[in-house]
């Protein structure tokens, strides 16, 4: 699918989840617009996760919009996370921002303590190191933590890049997924617990420069699911309207 070349361009879809046991609509989106080659080296982040007595996990050269997943099987306790700007383009002086979404999990990949995934958002200047800790405990219902799972994202906004957003809406509920152009990965998946019926999905972007071609090529993945997260009857999205109209 390709959205229109205009500031504010928005595609509106309807997706029907007809099965009565539908709990939520799961959606993710990817921006597949070909990226023009850049003559400027990007800003980069390096992340390292350690726990005393265990093998550390790290990832290098995470550029703006990119994410990486790390897992350290070191049980409950305090994990140290360190982020620095190794390898970054030092000519770009803008501080970078990043987010750390962490899950303390048992052997069955169930959340332990804390009982929900937590997200930390931070900022870092060139040549600096950001150090902080996250703690995992024991849950009364799901038992001991066996590992820490981390989704690390370089959330630095590249002013030259356009991000693709997808909103899922039903009644008074809504959620949003974003994909940054330039990689082969879908956005994070989002779930909207609206039950059975019609969901509205909007696809739009952060285009800002009228002189550029702001049309975006994209692909949506979607499925209606029940409480057990199994797929239920999912109709093909119906494109209702594109703004601006041809």
């Amino acid at each position, binding site marked *: 699918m390709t959205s229109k070349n205009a*500031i*504010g*361009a*928005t595609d*509106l879809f309807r997706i029907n989840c007809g099965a009565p046991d539908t709990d939520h609509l799961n959606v993710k989106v990817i921006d597949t617009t070909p990226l023009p080659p850049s003559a400027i080296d990007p800003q980069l982040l390096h992340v390292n996760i350690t726990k005393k007595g265990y093998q550390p996990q790290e990832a290098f050269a995470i550029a703006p919009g990119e994410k990486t997943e790390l897992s350290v099987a070191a049980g409950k306790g305090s994990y140290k996370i360190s982020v620095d700007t190794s390898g970054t383009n030092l000519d770009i002086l803008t*501080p970078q*921002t990043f*987010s750390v*979404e962490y899950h303390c999990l048992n052997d069955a990949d169930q959340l332990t303590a804390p009982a929900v995934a937590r*997200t*930390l*958002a931070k*900022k870092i200047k060139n040549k600096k190191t950001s150090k902080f800790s996250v703690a995992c405990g024991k849950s009364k219902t799901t038992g001991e933590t066996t590992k820490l799972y981390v989704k690390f*994202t370089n*959330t630095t*906004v590249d*002013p030259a890049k356009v*991000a693709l*957003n997808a*909103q899922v*809406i039903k009644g*008074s*509920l*809504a*959620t*949003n*997924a*974003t994909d*940054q152009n330039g990689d082969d990965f879908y956005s*994070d998946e*989002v779930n909207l617990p609206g039950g059975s019926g019609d969901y*509205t999905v*909007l696809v*739009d*972007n*952060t*285009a*800002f420069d009228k002189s550029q071609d702001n049309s975006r090529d994209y692909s949506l993945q979607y499925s209606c699911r029940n409480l057990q997260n199994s797929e239920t009857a999912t109709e093909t999205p119906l494109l*209702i*309207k594109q*703004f601006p109209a041809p």
Partner: protein
Amino acid sequence: MKNVKTWRWLFVHAAIAYSSIGIAHDQGGTLNAGASATDVYQVSCFDDGGGKPYQLFFEIKSVIPASPPVSAQVINDDLAMSTTDRVGGDENYSPELQVVKPGNNDTYTIVIDKSAAGKASYSLEYHCQDSHGNHTGTDILPLQNQ
């Protein structure tokens, strides 16, 4: 006597100028640090005696410096538009848009979201207008706050 007439003249022209500008509506809010955090509002447009509603004007401003770009989408039936403020903390709003949907007692859904994880705060400016761009009756109802 001349002074009274002068003051009366000033008052009348100030009133005319004020009614021409119209009343801007501002809604502030905050999106939590989660990447998918989304706020939802319902805006109702009605004839308050000044004219029949014709369109909804909207624009959004991201308030916190270095926060993720903040976007607003407006939907009415099968029509939807989006606008984004990419730079937080400056004085500039996003590009302004008007969703044209003539009709009295009409409702629009407004969704506010952002393009990355990280806390964001916003100021949404919105108002219902008649076909000449004059303000008409405008109400807002928060539906979701994340």
